């Protein structure tokens, strides 16, 4: 595959469960490298991955993976894919090295090569010392790692990771993210990371596709999406919030509340007018009689991109 060829291409893809559209006329390009697949619960992220794997048949549209049509060559597509499912999955009664080697054989590796790569992959994901333990005795974090190992053992060109840090402790999560970043940036394996955790995607991926209600809300390089024409400020005020927000909107600024009591205010326009922006925000606050308790410049984050894309307040 040429460097510039997309890893995955979807054209007008729709997937329907009964009467509900999980994906509705989705067209998207996943470039080579690390791409994050973001979206709130029920947006259609897992459905998209399952359709690309051939688990679900779209009612319409065309899908290509690594230049191959999924509908025409599902086995060839899957031989170059690795899939780390969201839910726990293992083959009962096996230890880790047997399981990973077995997965390698299922993917077409000769028995001896599969066993050798199983050992290598288990060391790579940090399970080298536990590789002879039965999988049923593994902790949640270890199960996540073994799922990654089975996805990598046959050396795929593209890996689908569905919520890879689910249930992991902070240290394990950091290690998993470091692995994912390494896979994409140093091992030359393309990956699509489906997650609702924006920091995970921001840390590991270069591009993002945001899904919302079965449609593509936005997509592109993260840096480009994060860096719109405008500035971002963190603001905390004392007083009636609603009139202040309305006044900000009236003044041409966007405003978004966060989990904390700090609002993020987006000011459109060219960069380089920070002082004027701050004066403007304070003036708006003065007009609606609220006190500005905290005001400082910030940088656009993926969370801002996500919030704008899915229309969160």
């Amino acid at each position, binding site marked *: 595959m040429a460097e510039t060829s997309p890893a995955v291409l979807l054209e007008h893809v729709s997937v329907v469960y009964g009467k509900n559209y999980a994906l509705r006329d989705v067209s998207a390009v996943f470039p080579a490298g690390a791409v994050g697949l973001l979206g709130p619960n029920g947006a259609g992220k897992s459905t998209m991955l399952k359709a690309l794997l051939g*688990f679900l048949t779209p009612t319409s549209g065309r899908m290509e993976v690594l230049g191959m049509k999924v509908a025409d060559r599902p086995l060839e597509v*899957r031989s170059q894919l690795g899939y780390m*499912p969201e839910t726990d999955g293992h083959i009962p009664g096996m230890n880790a090295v047997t399981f990973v080697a077995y997965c390698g054989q299922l*993917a077409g590796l*000769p028995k001896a090569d599969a066993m050798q*790569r199983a050992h290598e*992959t288990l060391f790579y994901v940090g399970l*080298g010392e536990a590789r002879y333990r039965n999988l049923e005795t593994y902790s949640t974090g270890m199960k996540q790692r073994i799922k990654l190992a089975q996805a990598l053992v046959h050396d795929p060109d593209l890996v689908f990771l569905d919520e890879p840090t689910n249930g992991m402790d902070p240290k394990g999560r950091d290690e998993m993210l470091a692995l994912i970043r390494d896979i994409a940036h140093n091992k030359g394996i393309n990956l699509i990371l489906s997650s609702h955790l924006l920091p995970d995607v921001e840390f590991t991926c270069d591009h993002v596709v945001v899904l919302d209600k079965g449609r593509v809300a936005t997509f592109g390089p993260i840096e480009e999406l994060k860096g719109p024409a405008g500035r971002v400020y963190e603001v905390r005020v004392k007083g009636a919030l609603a009139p202040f927000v309305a006044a900000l909107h009236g003044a041409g600024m966007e405003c978004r509340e966060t989990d904390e009591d700090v609002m993020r205010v987006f000011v459109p326009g060219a960069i380089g007018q920070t002082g004027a922006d701050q004066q403007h925000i304070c003036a708006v606050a003065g007009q609606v009689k609220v006190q500005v308790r905290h005001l400082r410049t910030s940088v656009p984050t993926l969370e801002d991109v996500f919030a704008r894309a899915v229309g969160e307040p």
Partner: protein
Amino acid sequence: MSPIHDQSYRRYSGTRLPVGRSWAVIARHGIKAMVEKRAFLILMIVAWIPFIVRCVQLYVVANYPQAGAIVAVDAKMFRDFLDQQGFFVFLTTIYVGAGMIANDRRANALQIYLSKPLLRMEYVGGKLLVLVSFLLGVTLLPAVLLILMQVAFSGSFTFIWNNLFVVPAVVLACLVQVLVASFTMLALSSLSKSSRYVSLLYTGAIFFTEAMFNALRLITGSTRVAWVSITANLQQVVDAIFRTPARYETPTLVSMLVLLALVAVSISVLERRVKGVEVVS
């Protein structure tokens, strides 16, 4: 942050086997996993005891022809042998087959299997091959060996020449018995995540249909209703294969159609249940 476990992963430059052979991997693994179980080996050994008894019978008749009047060596002997093995077919089917797909469903392994380059048919084929192999190991293999023993003990091919149909009959009867049991069990195994529940379902399917047949026989006073029983249908078809008088009044064709329908329904169930994703709409 630097990668933490970058000590060993490298791209694979070796050869890859062509797609379409995963069924063999699944079957090999399944057979290996089963023969490693002590309880299963004991079951296999016990299942071969009737073979030893029949060998003694063949030896006695070969050396003391007058014993042939009591324990005759004819086509019916092989048919009776397969009848006796039906019990071990039942036990082996439950032991090997109940968890075959149910355990994979319990551990969410289907999504792992089907994310690899293998068709659903290959997955089912691999699992089926495991069960069929062991069932043939308690039916076809001892039956064929019995024929060879008969030749060895009698020192002639007279029996074979006089009963040329016995060899194909043994093969055909074993295949019918084994395929019906295997497809039925795999279909049931795909319906649940509990191998115990599947065992109960299979036992129920065998015994309930047999009980229903016996009840109807008492009520109607006829065996024309034998088609409701899986076991009776198998017996009826195997009787026809061995050219022995049918034991029930149900036409053999009806019994064959019932067994074919059972296999067809099982395939349909497998087609619906063996999927990488469960869609609840």
